[in-house]
């Protein structure tokens, strides 16, 4: 067992974990944050995307021990008391980007990380760049168009 200390959704915690534990299992099974979805567990679908130190990663391909000292944000960490949904989530609902919804948390987290980065750099991405930012997130319901619309709308105003 190894001890790790990290921040998750703003809260600092210390956990004893098996070295081989995957981040997705830490999140879903140990911390009971079930919003992060297990789609393939082999890095091919993006459903389990979370943000680690500002970067979107597949939590199924990431060792839990490597979040030691880092900040993890899952879908449950977006929004706050005043605005229970983040802008990215609002746009996803508004633009019809959600059907069965199983890919949605991953889509949201990827878009959140990407849009935060773009904002930091002061750039508004093109539609092609937005599409490219979502290339690692599979969806079987929507044909992506409404998800891309939603992700683009995040840059409005």
């Amino acid at each position, binding site marked *: 067992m190894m001890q790790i200390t990290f921040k998750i959704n703003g809260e600092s915690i210390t956990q004893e974990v098996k070295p081989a534990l995957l981040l997705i299992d830490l999140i879903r099974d140990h911390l009971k944050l079930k919003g992060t979805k297990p789609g393939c567990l082999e*890095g*091919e679908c993006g459903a389990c*995307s979370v943000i680690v130190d500002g*970067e979107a*990663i*597949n939590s199924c391909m990431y*060792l839990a021990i*490597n979040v030691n000292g880092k900040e993890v944000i899952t879908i449950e960490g977006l929004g706050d008391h005043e605005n229970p949904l983040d802008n990215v989530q609002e746009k996803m609902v508004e633009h019809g980007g959600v059907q069965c919804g199983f890919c949605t948390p991953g889509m949201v987290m*990827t878009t959140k990380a990407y849009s935060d980065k773009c904002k930091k750099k002061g750039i508004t991405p093109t539609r092609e760049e937005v599409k490219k930012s979502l*290339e690692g997130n599979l969806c079987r319901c929507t044909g992506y168009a409404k998800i891309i619309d939603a992700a683009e709308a995040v840059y409005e105003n």
Partner: protein
Amino acid sequence: MDFEVINTTTSDELLKAIAANQNSNFRIGAGFTDLINQLKKQNTEELTIINIAQLKDEAYTQIVEEADGLRIGTLATASDIVDNNFIRENYPVLHQAASKLACTQIRNVATLGGNICNVSPSGDMTASLIALKATCHIVDCNGGERAELLSDFIIGLKKTTLKKNEIIKNITIPMNDHHNIISGYEKVGSRKSMEIAIVSLGYHIQMNNDGTITDAGVSCGAVAPTIPFATSACDFLLGKDIQDLTEADKEEFANKVMEYASPISDVRASEWYRKEVLFNLSQTIFS
């Protein structure tokens, strides 16, 4: 999947961990994007992972412009490479290869060293670095160092010259004049994203101000057990004027590239298709 982990945060700790495990079964893990899938399938008993994901040594992590070229740490991620403006300008072949690798989530953690040491014939960054005549800088756990051309470092399917007591610290790429280059990475797959190359072609061709080809690097991915550097195709180009290349020259160039192709048929594509596409692609890079 079960294993023990040794965390290393300095190069000293890393070399010590390698030294301490010379008699045991260990793997080095950085981005883990290939390793986790492999370990899940293998079910290896008594495995130790030397974890370098949190290694802080700049020699292993940084991308540094030097007088005669560029030095890239083994722990640079594909995203680091994609975001690097110097690489984008000077080495389009590497920029394109890194940006065509998998997706953001993978690029954010997948490392250059991992891509090289996974020794896949379809490794995108590796293929581009072979075209760039990159050199690997290797250290061993006794403090020894050596340098080897990447195309020599890979000696066969899943085989390199790396010894059990060694690790790649960084790679260097020679400098060029980016105003006069033709450089790019063609990756063929059945969709635009999330592919492992069925065939890839990396090329980096340097001209002088008159348009005469002074240096050339061409590599082909997924068509052989290694990623071959197409020496005779490169030699064929040397001294020729880029503007004067005829259709026959381009075809001859493509034929020379084909000398390096000995692909297999698998679920993703047949041998026939791989050859056909490589031949076709090779002719297109000058247009």
